[in-house]
């Protein structure tokens, strides 16, 4: 277990070497090997029949933490990055610790980040949203103005189209934080984009929008009007509080079910037009290069996907016997209909149990309980959404798209459980 004060230096995720050397595992102290149990680090003086110090002396009073934070013993529950992935942290990504979260809502401080020019720190008094182009009345709105419009609340997942992109050519990273952590799910509060567009008054030939960010990358993506008038939101709050700067404070675009790159953060401008713009982010990037040299563009919808978050490489098995397997499923096309789990690498499947709310275009939690006898396992999950789309195998995806399409890897993930409890990211046939 790391010294809780050293938040800036988290413990490394488990590797074969660290397992064998120290028995280290994230999220709790263990003895030698994942199965050694958790009691090794406990001080006997704080355990029954003794009375621990915290039962005898007063703790901190109210407002000693005016803005609350997790227990110091949870210091390793943080976003992490993969340093070799990008040239600079200002144009990079960090990953949600999916293996350390429960339910379907991601805490604001743990939702993955993706920036193209660093985090813009914007004084809300100096932020403006301009709506112009093919409209009757070009609008200039302050944040206060935006908050005066009728409001909606919507829980939605946000997944980067490059989530699992490092796995296209083969198993590469040991941990669902790194293989699947470019996704989060929060409740947004904001104005339906439709309401703002109606305030400006759309001209009859208005068919496309160009949202633009106020950051040093001035992100732009072309959005078809149909989506804008359907369920798009200009949001200013997530999980009940103002957006965090890394998620676009004070305003961001929300496009439920669509790739995260289009959810423009630090939203400063919406231009209304009659053709797509073919910006850098929808040509050079976020297009799928296929084996025949052609490239698929405007791949907006995120296909159905799932991953087992526990157990997983960063969250190894600790005990034989009764085991709760837990994971997340989501689809950009609607609700999750069902999730199946395999313990034998996809040969046989059993229905998992969906628990908690099953919402349109939101993360959905599933569980599968079983008795582990200590044998090797090949764990997989397979999501089916309400359109009947079945999460494909990685082999099926590669058959269609080759190895160089980078984005939209929603293939079935396999975790190899060893008798030691250690878990590795593998591929099977």
């Amino acid at each position, binding site marked *: 277990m790391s010294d809780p004060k050293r938040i800036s230096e988290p413990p490394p995720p488990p590797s074969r070497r660290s397992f064998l050397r120290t028995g280290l595992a994230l999220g709790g102290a263990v003895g030698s090997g994942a199965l050694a149990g958790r009691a090794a680090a406990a001080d006997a003086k704080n355990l029954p029949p003794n009375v621990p110090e915290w039962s005898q002396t007063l703790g901190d009073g109210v407002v000693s933490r005016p803005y609350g934070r997790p227990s110091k013993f949870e210091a390793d529950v943080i976003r992490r990055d993969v340093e070799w992935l990008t*040239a600079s942290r200002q144009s990079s990504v960090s990953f949600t610790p999916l293996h350390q979260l429960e339910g379907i809502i991601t805490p604001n401080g743990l939702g993955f980040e993706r920036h193209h020019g660093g985090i813009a720190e914007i004084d809300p008094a100096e932020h403006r949203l301009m709506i112009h182009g093919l409209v009757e009345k070009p*609008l200039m*709105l302050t944040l206060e103005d935006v908050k005066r419009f009728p409001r909606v609340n919507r829980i939605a997942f946000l997944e980067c189209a490059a989530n699992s992109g490092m796995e296209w050519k083969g198993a590469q990273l040991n941990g669902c934080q790194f293989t699947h952590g470019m996704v989060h799910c929060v409740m947004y509060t904001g104005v339906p984009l439709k309401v703002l567009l109606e305030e400006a008054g759309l001209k*009859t030939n208005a068919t496309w929008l160009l949202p633009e960010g106020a950051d040093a990358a001035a992100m732009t993506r072309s959005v078809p009007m149909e989506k804008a008038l359907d369920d798009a939101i200009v949001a200013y709050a997530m999980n009940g509080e103002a957006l965090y700067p890394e998620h676009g404070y004070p305003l961001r675009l929300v496009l439920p079910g669509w790739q995260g790159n289009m959810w423009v953060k630090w939203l400063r401008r919406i231009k209304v037009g009659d053709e797509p713009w073919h910006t850098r982010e929808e040509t*050079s990037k976020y297009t799928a290069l296929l084996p025949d*040299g052609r490239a698929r563009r405007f791949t907006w919808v995120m296909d159905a996907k799932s991953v087992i978050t526990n157990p997983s490489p960063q969250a190894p098995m600790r005990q034989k016997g009764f085991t709760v397997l837990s994971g997340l499923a989501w689809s950009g096309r609607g609700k999750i209909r069902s999730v199946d789990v395999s313990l034998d690498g996809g040969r046989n*499947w059993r229905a998992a149990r969906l628990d908690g709310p099953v919402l349109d275009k939101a993360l959905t939690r599933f569980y599968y309980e079983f008795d582990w006898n200590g044998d090797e396992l090949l764990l997989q999950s397979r999501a089916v959404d309400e359109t009947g789309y079945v999460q494909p195998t990685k082999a*099926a995806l590669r058959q269609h798209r080759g190895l160089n399409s980078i984005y939209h890897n929603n293939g079935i993930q396999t975790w190899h459980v060893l008798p030691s409890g250690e878990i590795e990211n593998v591929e099977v046939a």
Partner: protein
Amino acid sequence: MSRSRNGTLAALAVLFLTTAAAGAERLNIGRAATPEEIKGWDIDVRPDGKGLPVGKGTAALGETIFQERCASCHGEFGEGAGRWPELAGGAGTLKSDNPVKTVGSYWPYVTTVFDFVHRAMPFGAAQTLTPDETYSLTAYLLYLNDILKDQDFEVNEKNLATIRLPNEKNFFMDDRETAEKEFWTAKPCMKDCLPEAATITGRARILDVTPEKASEAAKQSPPVQ
């Protein structure tokens, strides 16, 4: 200033209109953006040239600016440096195992180069290049990619959009719902879905690039940009 109950209901009714009703009842929030305000922020450019600012440049002029402002990341000839992207080369690689996607080999439209450089480059000094500098840099990138042969050819707001890139024809609209229709399966297999026991064909540990243990091998992987 509070709105009347009926006014609020009218506003909510607006939410449920199924079409974009031009002239739907306005809530009269905010104010009109002035032409001057719009001009300052209206920087986007389309493939048909709409949005290009008045200006001109040449590859020869662009080379000087590029070496000063861009080469430290993108290399003297757009070949890239470290993890920063290459901007030239890659012709004929798109069907290979290691496709190199550059302005010349992959990008469909010249206007995207102008738009992106003007809005986001140099990295960390966005929106500092003048239109003329941006025209020159765009011309230089076209020259590096053998799209422009004459380093003194003047590109400007009138002719830039007429220059076509070789890969334009190879982009097509998302067709996953037809091309991948087999993924919609009425009854997913539940039993004996593999002819025999699953065998492991790949392991993350072979690559061993999980953070804290990044290896040189990882540097060969395509970066997320």
